[in-house]
């Protein structure tokens, strides 16, 4: 995973309530069993003039030349609600987004962001939408700074922060604890044998 330290970019304002993962990547755009090739389908229902088409809708903010290459997205409350599909985050990441600022995130979506190197920032996006120019996002200091030097701090828990900063693979980290996991399961099996199945469905 690419480590996340800081960003400098304009922020794309898409501040609507309850932007769901179907809107971020419509199901019909998830055409293959792959994590790649999804960015074309990002916000497809809003971004193109016709369903399934690729003619850009000039009224949609992502098509505004001002925001080409932007890596920060501003969203509304309950961002990423709906289906748990990680494709929403893969599409956002492939398109180039590295940070999303929204008043609140759906919990599954937020976890998916962290696992894919996208920083989910819980903050009011409205003041940032009014800024004309690039925002500086810094994860180490947990701050967003406007071109006028106005700095806001955002909250981020220790574990996801470390994951993002170091670009760590959580599976590798957990596999280091393999012996403890095995010991815990062995003890638990003694107490709740019916929690442990063999492939025919009998307790072991």
């Amino acid at each position, binding site marked *: 995973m690419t480590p996340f330290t800081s960003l400098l970019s304009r922020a794309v304002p898409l501040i*609507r*309530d*309850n932007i*769901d993962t*179907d*809107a971020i990547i*419509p*199901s*019909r*755009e*998830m*055409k*293959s*069993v*792959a*994590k790649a090739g999804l960015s074309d389908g990002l916000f497809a*229902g809003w971004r193109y003039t016709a*369903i*399934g088409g690729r003619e850009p809708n000039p009224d949609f903010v992502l098509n505004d030349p001002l925001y080409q290459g932007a890596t920060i997205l501003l969203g*509304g*409350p*309950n961002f990423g*609600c*709906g*289906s*748990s*599909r*990680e494709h929403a*985050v893969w599409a956002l990441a492939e398109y180039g987004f590295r940070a999303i600022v929204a008043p*609140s995130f759906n*919990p*599954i*979506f937020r*976890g*998916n962001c962290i*696992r894919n190197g996208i920083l989910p920032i819980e903050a009011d996006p409205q003041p940032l939408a009014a800024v004309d120019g690039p925002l500086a996002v810094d994860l180490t200091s947990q701050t967003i700074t406007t071109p006028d030097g106005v700095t806001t701090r955002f909250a981020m*828990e*220790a*574990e996801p922060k470390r994951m993002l900063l170091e670009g760590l693979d*959580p*599976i590798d*980290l*957990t*596999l280091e*604890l393999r012996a*403890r*996991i095995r010991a*815990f*399961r062995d003890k*638990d099996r003694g107490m*709740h*044998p*019916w*929690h*442990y*199945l063999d*492939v025919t*469905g009998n*307790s*072991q």
Partner: protein
Amino acid sequence: MTAPRTLFDKLWDAHRIATLGEDSDLILIDRILLHERTGGIALKSLEEQGRRVNDPAQVFVTMDHVVDTLPGRTDATIMPTGTQFITATRDAARRAGLTLFDLGDPGQGIVHVISPEQGIILPGLTLVCPDSHTCSQGALGGLAWGIGSSEAEHALATSTLRMQKPRQMRIMVTGILPPGTTAKDLALHILRRIGSSGAHGHMVEYAGPAIAALEIEARLTLCNMATELSAFSAIIAPDDKTAAYLAGRRLAPKGEDRAHALAYWRTLATDTDATFDREEVVDATQVRPMVSWGTSPQQAVPLGEVVPAFDPDQRLSTEDAHQRALAYMGLPPGQRLGDLPIDAAFIGSCTNSRLSDLRRAAAILRGRHVAQGVRAICVPGSTAVKAAAEAEGLDRIFLDAGFEWREAGCSMCFFAGGESFGPEERVVTSTNRNFESRQGPRTRSHLASPETVAASAVTGRITAPADLEAGI
């Protein structure tokens, strides 16, 4: 004496392997469910990284999302690339030695329908699935929640997840649901009251006399829509109904194991003095048959009411979101929902496709016929539900009434690029999401209980079952 704990605290503590830092724990995962839509990619990605499934016996795979539901189905799908999802998932599941409920298997069906049916979810277990409606399964008193595909890979490779403990909320439902109202109406009533971020990030425990009175299948319906509240998940403490429901299920404990399990399950309740971060009290006696009018499940009203105008005093929605929903649904404020003509009716999905749902809908359809011009579809949630329904002749009632009778799967609960309802078609649906284009490009979905869907199919307009019976 230990401090009083909630049911969730007890399950969390019982599964905490290690503390990883100030705010995260390593949690043991007992069961992992996968489906071909999001699970296949997790298996494939795991393989590509040279990793193995830690304990294949704890993993169950089903085909539900992109498979066709028309009779005589094969691996070929109406969704253009669906076959790829099916074969990739099947092949990866076989290579990893996982239990697979494939097409044609009597155990096949929607993941959240088959899990309780087979006794995969049990009280006191942790269960995860890369699917947001995994919260349904908390109805059995297990800790079940939806995750992303990367987390699924983590769970597969390690039998654990790295987790932050969510905050907790209790929704106490007092009184008893009035006759003619269902768990679906209760779910929509709660959504209307606290909104689609109303339980944001919280573990919700449903409790109270109205919950105790619900049968297990109704509890599954209620917990199903916890993700619509943006909850982490939902849970209901196991009771005698839970134990009775699980008796004899394929993977549920038997013999001596069952005796121990029953004793353990009795300890799985919130202690009297335990506290929650939030408490909500809902009066079940106030619940009426509900229908959604907008594009978020919180935009729902009792059937007799009209489409509301934006009310600046309520805090749940912005004016922009309200207007956008009205425009999308093609509805003016003040429109009586009861008069609204429909184009289609859909009974199915992990919310409402179990045997009890089909029985209640069939009771309304018996001796009646779907209105002219209305396309009506019934999709049993699992192959076992379908077989049980056919054994009691429910399929005949649906077919005679003019409904299509399908093979089990998610079907037109969501649009994956295959079958769908038409643009601007108005669909009364027993599903859980009325998002824009959820059931097809620009379709207009109205969420309701299966009986309301059945009654509406008969009259060709949104209709409360009681009004149909009364001949209104």
